[in-house]
């Protein structure tokens, strides 16, 4: 309850700043929007040359692509401050102040900023899903599953960011490591069967980004991978617990070595 109240203050502050820097905000959203649009143009151009990609048609690809943007955008919207943490909080000595407050440092750091630019990703994701809405044979069951899937897919993103951010407790900075792992999410935007075995293995079992888009999306489109939802819940929760564990280890290492 206390945490929700705090979060409200952060968000309210963010909106005040937003009004102050309207132009910046529009440019940010536009930047994301244009980036994603041009990727769609790419797909569209390709599909003017070929009928289907390993059996996937353009609408299906658009659905997968749109789906991938929802958890990505949500995570970006809510937990963007983890990037700042990985890049400079420990190295500049700013982490001490979080330890001096009687609430969880991880909560404060994760939610301290609210990154409204991410609306660009969510917006285009939703538009793409609407565009390809008809290719899914929707049932009430599927609709409920669709909604339930979103928080867990988002959790995969956030957990990965917490894990890689924790590395900076040992190395002072971990922005570059976070970048490598984060970039792997781009693999999830396309059907996994276009990749070779190694990549498929990595994005399914090691850095499970395939669960943030392709597996759920293919279930909704074709009913394949029936069990995806259970594996998603298991994997995302496991991943989250692991990230908490690494974070804790990191803090205790920080406590014994200082900065």
């Amino acid at each position, binding site marked *: 309850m*206390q945490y929700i*109240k*705090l979060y409200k*203050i*952060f968000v309210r*502050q963010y909106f005040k*700043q937003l009004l102050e820097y309207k132009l910046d905000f529009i440019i940010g959203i536009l930047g994301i929007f244009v980036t994603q649009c041009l990727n769609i143009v790419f797909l569209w151009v390709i599909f003017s040359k070929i009928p289907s990609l390993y059996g996937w048609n353009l609408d299906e690809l658009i659905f997968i692509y749109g789906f991938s943007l929802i958890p990505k955008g949500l995570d970006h919207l809510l937990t963007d401050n983890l990037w700042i943490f990985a890049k400079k909080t420990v190295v*500049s*000595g*700013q982490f*001490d*102040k979080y*330890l*001096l*407050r*009687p*609430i969880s440092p991880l909560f404060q750091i994760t939610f*301290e900023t609210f990154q409204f630019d991410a609306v660009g990703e969510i917006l285009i994701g939703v538009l793409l899903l609407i565009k390809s809405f008809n290719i899914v044979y929707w049932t009430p069951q599927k609709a409920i599953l669709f909604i339930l899937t979103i928080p867990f897919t988002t959790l995969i993103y956030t957990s990965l960011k917490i894990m890689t951010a924790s590395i900076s407790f040992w190395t002072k900075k971990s922005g570059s490591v976070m970048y490598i792992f984060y970039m792997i999410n781009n693999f999830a935007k396309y059907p996994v069967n276009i990749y070779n075995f190694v990549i498929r293995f990595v994005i399914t079992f090691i850095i499970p980004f395939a669960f943030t888009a392709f597996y759920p999306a293919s279930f909704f489109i074709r009913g394949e991978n029936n069990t995806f939802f259970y594996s998603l819940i298991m994997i995302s929760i496991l991943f989250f617990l692991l990230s908490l564990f690494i974070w804790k280890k990191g803090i*205790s290492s920080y*406590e*014994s*070595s*200082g900065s």
Partner: protein
Amino acid sequence: MKNNIIEVSNLNKVFKKQTKSSNLISYLKTLILPEYTYFQAVKDLNFQIPEGQIFGFIGANGAGKSTTIKMLTGILQPTSGNIVIDGYNPQNDRKEYVKEIGVVFGQRTQLWWDLPVIETYFVLKEIYQIPDSEFNDRLAFFDDILELRKFINNPVRTLSLGQRMRADIAASLLHNPKILFLDEPTIGLDVSVKDRIRQAIKEINSQKKTTIILTTHDLRDVEVLCDRIYIINNGQEIFDGTLEKLKSSYGSMREVVFSVDHINDIEKLNYKLKFPEIEVYVKDNDIHVIFDSNKTVLPELIKYTLDKVVVKNILVNETSIEDIVKKIMRT
């Protein structure tokens, strides 16, 4: 008899640092077989602080001051020894413990950079769950002694250093902590602002009975504020006592300044041969000599100097506390 609110016994901190090599081959070697060097930052500190005291914690850079403060505030785990503050162990009971303390680091702010000051206070109000009425009372009190009103609606990043420090002090006290840690609260401020901050600290201590641990390089802070002075060097205690004790132990210290034409004349003086116990340093065209009046006879010193070199002017001072501390740290 006042209760001791802080008890520190046999406190030690040893840092383990991996040896880094710029040479590629030995660098690769250290990846497999890491080599460590050990550095003892704090050695066997013991002290108790009674409730309501202003405790001046003094030491040169690298003496172990900030390591000790970090251990006292629970940020750093001691290698060995015990810290009990208000019944808590700072590391193990952190969430409860930090509600009882306020911390101000002069070098960096605790506030949210982009938020207006008042908004950061609202955030702290939620974090510490301060009831409305108490929050308003305290804000009024701090506004009184720190004059926050002029800049309370400005974003933190736009404040001057002095304003920011005042805002930070108020922020650290909003939850009415029993203990306040002030790390260099007057660093980089000009004289009038320093005075105002000292006044405010005094006021807070007398009205709220807050125990204050103050580290500073400015010994005026200590003279004006501190009931007790604790000096460490190389991680070890070298003095513990009141300002009076410091003065009476070292109060026979005097300083005499000779203004000379040719500063190179100092080589002719060879003070060390005749007066082995004195301290000499040169500033501009002046030779400063610090000596203990119980050991060295002033007229003899002056005569000796006049015989050797041409002196334009002679000035005899009571030593300042700064000189005393400098002298203690050198020995």
